């Protein structure tokens, strides 16, 4: 089955990240790189997104499209990237998510084919 693992950052996580020096951040990136390499055979696609301050939302629900600055929900948790994986079942996707070494929230959704 195909799933998307959505990685979400929290306010606290962002604060902690800001407080890190370059060597700590490099170590963080290295861990993510290692995770990607370990699961390379299952990952079919992966992307990191630019921050929520770069987001633009278009609302199409009331006739005229309305364009607004920012994400569609002003939340404390923001999706910051995703990977698409091809695995046997939810348990295998969960095993991957459990070992994710970066931001503290991962949402798993099956992909409709």
């Amino acid at each position: 089955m195909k799933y998307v693992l959505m990685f979400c950052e929290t306010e606290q996580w962002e604060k902690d990240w800001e407080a890190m020096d370059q060597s700590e951040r490099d170590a963080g990136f290295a861990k993510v790189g290692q995770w990607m390499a370990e699961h390379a055979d299952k990952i079919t696609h992966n992307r990191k997104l630019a921050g929520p301050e770069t987001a633009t939302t278009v609302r199409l629900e009331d006739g005229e499209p309305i364009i607004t600055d920012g994400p569609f929900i002003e939340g404390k948790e923001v999706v910051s990237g995703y990977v698409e994986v091809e695995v046997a079942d939810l348990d295998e996707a969960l095993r991957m998510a459990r070992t994710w070494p970066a931001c503290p929230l991962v949402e798993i959704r099956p992909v409709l084919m």
Partner: protein
Amino acid sequence: MTSPDDVLARVVREHAGRLAASLVSLLGDFSAAEDLVADAVETALRRWPVEGVPDRPDAWLFTVAKNRGLDVLRRQARYREKLAQLQWPVQPEPDDRLRLIFTCCHPALSREAQIALTLRVVCGLTTAQIARAFLVPETTVAQRLTRAKRKITDAGIPYRIPAPEELGERLAQVLHVVYLMFNEGYLSSSADRVQSHDLVADADWLASLLHGLMPREPEIAGLLALIRLHRARTAARFSPEGNLVQLQDQDRSRWDQQMIGEAVELLTRAAHHRRPGPYQLQAAIVACHAEAKSWEDTDWPQIVILYDMLLCLAPSPVTRLHRTIALRYVSGAEKALAELDSLGLDRYHLYHATRAELLRDLGRDDEAREADQRALELTANPAEQALLKQRLRP
């Protein structure tokens, strides 16, 4: 005393889960398999009381489910072919029901869904029976089940025993579901709930099924012992008028000594694995009470030690509250009250009820009445309300 309903429940429990396990394996579709079994069970519960329980209830359920499947699965030709080839007797793998239980209690499902699914799929309860047992509308249970089955299919929840490195955590989930089932049945059992399904019997049966399938897991044995030790005292828990009788006032000659002996034996064997856990410790505490000749003979120092061990493994303010009850008999009411007051459980009725007892011990009767009054305001359980009202009577 065994009513015809109990006999039916037992027969269904014994065979419905097995049939569900075989059909899920065969069809590879949890939801479709479950629908067929549920239909067969409904039919059985309609017909058996009239026609009598057939000699081979398993073969009977199998035939009804199979015919039903051939009838309704018209569009899924694949399933129909598989079903058509299926011959009685089916030989389910010994682990099939275990896989079924782990699927029903998968952590990707909500706790309510886990409980409802397990009762329905593994124990063979009908939607109506589950609804009555939990005092919720039948439509709520039906929705919960539908949503959960859809999630199993759509989210790709597997039908298998978890990998060894995940087994411990997943088993803990399963045991928690069985424990909640037991608790619900045990706390709500009283004269006015005789109409509801006996969840305690279901929990007992599930724990013993798990124990048979995974005999080397001491926490399963611990939970089974805990359930049996509580059940052994059922006859003494209510007065002839249907009022709750507290442990210290129970007629201990009405406790089932054989059941207590067997449960203690089970617990002792579990302890040989040297892997203590919350259920073994809770069972050990209840065993201390069950083996005491009287309230006064209770081994309170041992109970306090067991509570300390339990708190190490699973810290919880409610466990600390129960520890203070034992502490009263080891270190005195004053010490116990000081400990209790540090817990901050102001919204919990047992906190106030316990406080009342300690205050009465210390001769502070007015404060004790206030505490009982507060406990009464906070409990919704009729049996407990009756007990507190009795205490408050001048």
